[in-house]
């Protein structure tokens, strides 16, 4: 039949060709959606720790999927096995794809062997969010912490990831640090690999 509709229908979503990842939506669309996500979760919890946990769980799901997508599309299905490798993958590739730029800095913790920190002057998700005083140290960056945890966990580097505000002098808004604390087994494996 000539002139059948433009869109080819795929019965299985896995058969659809993978997009190049260049499509964009406006920042405000994302900001509105994120604000609704936070507001919905606020109605479901009683305290801040629960709220952070729920945002992190939402981010975890995103992270797991981002890892699969990027590994397949950008890295040709090769996976990272070394700690520094996966950290620089998160710091550069993941950040570049999700937020349009590489993260501001990646540091190793001085006090503990298993801690690493990714810092960002202003997280994209926090751009339009202001935290009321009575919510204390709550940080919507918990969503991003969840994304990082999702990526690391799915890549085989279990870790506890949290987001913190770090006040910087000379800057009105504090910068955000994502603190990554790797599990014991990751460090042991890393030591074995030499």
């Amino acid at each position, binding site marked *: 039949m000539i002139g059948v509709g433009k*869109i080819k229908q795929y019965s299985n979503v896995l058969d659809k060709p993978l997009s190049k990842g260049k499509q*964009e*939506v*406006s920042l405000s669309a994302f900001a509105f959606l994120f604000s*609704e*996500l936070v507001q*919905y979760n606020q109605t479901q919890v009683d305290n801040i720790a629960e709220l952070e946990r729920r945002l992190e769980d939402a981010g975890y799901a995103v992270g797991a999927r981002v890892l699969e997508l990027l590994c397949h599309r950008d890295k040709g299905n090769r996976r990272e096995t070394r700690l520094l490798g996966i950290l620089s993958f998160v710091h550069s590739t993941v950040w570049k794809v999700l937020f349009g730029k590489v993260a501001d800095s990646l540091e190793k913790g001085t006090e503990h062997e298993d801690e690493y920190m990714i810092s960002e002057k202003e997280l*994209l998700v926090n751009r339009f969010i202001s935290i009321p005083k009575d919510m204390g140290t709550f940080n919507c960056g918990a969503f991003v912490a969840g994304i990082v945890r999702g990526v690391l966990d799915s890549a085989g580097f279990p870790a506890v990831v949290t987001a913190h505000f770090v006040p910087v002098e000379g800057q009105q808004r504090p910068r955000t640090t994502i603190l990554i604390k790797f599990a014991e087994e990751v460090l042991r494996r890393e030591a074995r690999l030499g």
Partner: protein
Amino acid sequence: MAPVGPRSGDAIFANVERVNAELFTLTYGATVRQLLTDLEEVEEVNKQLDQMGYNIGIRLIDEFLAKSNVTRCVDFRETAEVIAKVGFKMFLGVTATVSNWDADGTCCSIILEDNPLVDFVELPDTCQGLYYCNILSGVIRGALEMVSMKTEVTWIRDVLRGDDAYELQVKLLKQVPEEYPYKDDE
């Protein structure tokens, strides 16, 4: 200073800050998943998505009017065209088409070929009654309510349910005249 004419959807989209559509898609997916886990009933999730869309719509309209410089629409036909061509382009980066006007000019269909919300999505058998993109119907309803039009927005076609495009039916119920929140003589 002469008033600036309305800008096209492409021009505005090129000027706003943009983010990767995949972040948006995955965040929306995470939201729907959370709702499904919490509410469990597909109908409840549909309602909640519509409500979230409504909350977004009532704020989105301000940004839309500020950035797009559209003049007051003369009739509902123009309104629908503006939503499809300028509104969708400005926020989601895709254009929609308007069709299926009824005789009165109060009911039309907005058709989306491309929808950034549904990349990578497949509906499992347990969620067959779910309108995955129901947030969009809430957004349109909320935005139009803030400009004095009460509407009813329903899904006619949904690719996730097996159709070939996304079709939203927007029905104008009534035009509500603007009310001032204060009395003139007080």
